[in-house]
């Protein structure tokens, strides 16, 4: 190798990217050529210097928040544009005096000439909200009622509805069902929320209204029998149509109505479960904390504290045992979400061997604790989650993207770090090796 060849390979040599044979030739030359050796050494020094002095910079919270909401808004505004025109037609059921005969005629046409996709539950158009729910259900199935906000995230829809109505809204969260979206409509002065779920091909439709409106003898009413039953038991079941179940229940003085073409008991089970698992359920797992303090020690090990009122460990040192997996993640990060069930399994399976798992959420926003808690409950994450304000990622120094996972050994030192999604097998293998 001559000087020109060596100079061309210098950056590769600095970055340790040369093949064994090439590297041998490279060193053969630099051992004798002082000029090339100096160039090589100086470049190595420069790289090392830059590496230690210039750290990656994390996106400031305000910027990340702004960007995410810009993206979400651009999606929302486009979908609401499409639907507003249809929305003006629906749900203001006085107009249905005109619309119903037309729909009925079309319905009749289909009944006679081709079998309809589903059968109709056409009900009287009056002030009885149960009748209206049957009519609305048909309109939802026919695609005549569409959500103004399409989202599969109940918390997003919940926030949207809360902004638009003045009663309590807890979106039922249904297992095995996909949220399609929701909308708000106005009838006289009163606002109704509408939520659409899908279970396979079956649509489950919810409507919410302030219960005080219904008992206030105004334009939206319920039969007295239903009101009595709701006040007495909190639940009511309407059996106007055998094929379509309608269930009503009360929670925090909001009336919830669910309608679906499924058996009463099945819908009841969904309704009860959704009622239990809704977002503001206070019986949630309490393992989401906020970061309080990060301390660097002289021996390069880290300690950090989190807010905790329950009397359990509230700093890393007392939480840590033999090996801790520190996982930087966020609720919006797909790969992170994929990793969570594996980490939960690991935290359970290896608990007796002194392996701990702690999640560091990089989520941001004004409701971050509630948002993360809701997610944690839904996904049954049992290990503690500490919400980082950026300090911890900075302290770890190497969190360029998420998920990033660090393994901390018995002495409290980071021994391994991985950026990106890893499998359970991968973690188990690392754990077993480190525990030996």
């Amino acid at each position, binding site marked *: 190798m001559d000087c020109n060849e060596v100079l*061309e*390979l*210098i*950056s*590769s040599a600095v*970055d340790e*990217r040369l093949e064994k044979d090439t590297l041998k030739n490279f060193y053969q030359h630099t051992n004798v050529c*002082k*000029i090339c050796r*100096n*160039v090589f*050494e*100086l*470049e*190595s*020094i*420069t*790289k*090392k*210097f*830059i*590496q230690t*002095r*210039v*750290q*990656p*910079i*994390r*996106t*400031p919270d305000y*910027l*990340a928040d*702004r*960007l*995410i909401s*810009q*993206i*979400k808004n*651009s*999606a*929302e505004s486009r979908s609401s544009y499409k*639907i507003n025109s249809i929305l003006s037609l629906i749900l203001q059921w006085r107009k249905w005096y005109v619309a119903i005969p037309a729909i009925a005629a079309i319905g009749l046409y289909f009944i006679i000439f081709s079998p309809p996709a589903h059968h109709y539950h056409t009900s009287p158009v009056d002030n009885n909200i149960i009748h209206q729910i049957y009519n609305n259900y048909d309109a939802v199935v026919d*695609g005549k009622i*569409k959500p103004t906000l*399409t*989202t*599969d995230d109940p918390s997003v829809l919940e926030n949207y509805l809360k902004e638009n109505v003045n009663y309590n809204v807890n979106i039922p969260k249904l297992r095995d069902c996909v949220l*399609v*979206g929701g909308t708000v409509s106005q009838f006289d002065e009163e606002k109704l929320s509408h939520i*659409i779920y*899908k279970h396979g091909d079956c649509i489950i439709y919810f409507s919410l209204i302030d219960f005080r409106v219904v008992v206030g003898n105004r334009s939206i009413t319920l039969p007295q029998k239903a009101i009595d039953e709701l006040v007495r038991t909190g639940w009511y079941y309407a059996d106007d149509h055998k094929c379509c179940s309608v269930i009503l229940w009360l929670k925090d003085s909001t009336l919830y109505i669910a309608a679906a073409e499924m058996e009463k008991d099945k819908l009841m089970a969904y309704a009860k479960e959704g009622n239990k698992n809704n977002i503001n359920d206070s019986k949630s797992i309490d393992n989401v904390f906020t970061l309080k303090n990060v301390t660097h020690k002289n021996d390069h090990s880290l300690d950090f504290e989190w807010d905790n009122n329950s009397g359990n460990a509230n700093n890393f040192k007392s939480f840590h045992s033999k090996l801790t997996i520190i996982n930087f993640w966020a609720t*919006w*990060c*797909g*790969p*992170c979400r994929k990793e969570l069930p594996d980490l939960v399994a690991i935290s359970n399976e290896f608990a007796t061997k002194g392996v701990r798992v702690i999640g560091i959420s990089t989520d941001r926003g004004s409701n971050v604790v509630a948002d993360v808690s809701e997610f944690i409950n839904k996904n049954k994450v049992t290990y503690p989650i500490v919400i980082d304000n950026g300090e911890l990622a900075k302290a770890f120094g190497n*969190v*360029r*993207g*998420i998920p990033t996972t660090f393994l901390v050994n018995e002495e409290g030192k980071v021994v391994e770090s991985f950026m990106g999604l890893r499998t359970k097998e991968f973690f188990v293998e690392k754990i077993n090796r480190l525990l030996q």
Partner: protein
Amino acid sequence: MIPQKKQTVKETEFLDEAIPHMDSLYSFARRLTGNPDDADDLLQDTYLKAYRFWDKYEKGTNIRAWLFRIMKNSFINRYRKETKEPETIDFDEIQDFYTKAKDTVDDNDDLGKKIFSGLLDDDVTRALDSLSPDFKTVVILCDIEGYTYEEIAEFIDTPIGTVRSRLHRGRKLLQSKLFKYAKEKGYLK
């Protein structure tokens, strides 16, 4: 029959796949532009463009490379006019200094510390800023962000050989700048 799900799929996909790379891109934007305000604009521009052209992104390919390319192009479009004239730099000076200094020191690490020890973070940022975008990009991506040559080649759409030579040249320019600052401040005699 079911209300439009299309927007949501796009939004969910984008939030899942593109947002996790925000920190890498922001870090790069900060170094590339050299100041927070321009970095904010550049990051925002990049993400909104990426969202708008999400259907152009081929699923399963390197998303980070795709985002980086959008950022690089946005940067070039925006700052093209402001490209500085290259300064003349004396490479020999530092080599001479190093050769002499080496005779008095055994450990290379010590020597490294000695050469650049007195420099402030501002000096380092200033030196990095003085590089032209082509050189700056490869140095940031390799030395600060820690990407491999292959990844960098994909990000900037050039052969690996070009990455290698730009790195060498970029580091050399940086080295001379740092040396110059150190000398100006009187840390080096």
